[in-house]
């Protein structure tokens, strides 16, 4: 029984973490994109946000696991902040704006502003949640 738990539980946690991350992102960004008039196609919005969020998380995991960096709290913080800044300030909003432009009749500038607003909101919530996890796991070891 403990054998199963040791092997099953981590796998389940890995899956749950990613699904939660994608779910929270879609929950926050969809209403912003719809209300700002970019597009009303919720399936498309969900798919675009799932794509960017999964790539974001997979790259971050890849950097931390394969990158060979020491997994100290300080190193993890620096890597996470650098990746967040690069992804959330440049890559994700621009890519999402490009994706929405293919389906929207709104002008490029308005779409870009909308994706920045949506991403800043989801990024803020993501940072709060990550910070909470960080505190729970690393409290007392800093």
């Amino acid at each position: 029984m403990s054998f199963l738990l040791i092997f099953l539980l981590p796998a389940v946690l890995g899956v749950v973490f990613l699904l939660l991350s994608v779910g929270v992102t879609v929950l926050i960004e969809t209403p912003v994109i719809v209300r700002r008039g970019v597009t009303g196609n919720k399936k498309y919005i969900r798919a675009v946000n799932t794509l960017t969020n999964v790539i974001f998380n997979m790259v971050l995991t890849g950097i931390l696991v394969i990158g060979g960096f020491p997994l100290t709290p300080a190193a993890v913080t620096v890597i996470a902040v650098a990746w967040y800044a690069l992804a959330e300030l440049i890559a994700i909003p621009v890519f999402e704006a490009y994706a929405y432009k293919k389906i929207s009749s709104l002008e490029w500038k308005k779409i870009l502003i909308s994706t920045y607003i949506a991403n800043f909101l989801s990024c803020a919530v993501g940072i709060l949640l990550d910070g909470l996890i960080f505190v729970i796991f690393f409290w007392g070891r800093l």
Partner: protein
Amino acid sequence: MENYMLLDMGLGGLVMVAGGLAVIAFLLTGICLLAKSIGVIRRELKNEEAGADPGNDSDHDGKSV
């Protein structure tokens, strides 16, 4: 003293195995979600192109030139 393998691995080994499994499950889930979302994006773009009428002239008011 039943699980000799677990005892032999030690706590560090257990953490490595657990962490590795979590990462593998995470990455496999990510690949499935990626494939699904790319499929949805392509389908919705095709629907959008099919829905748009290439011959539709927005300035056309029914009068012949």
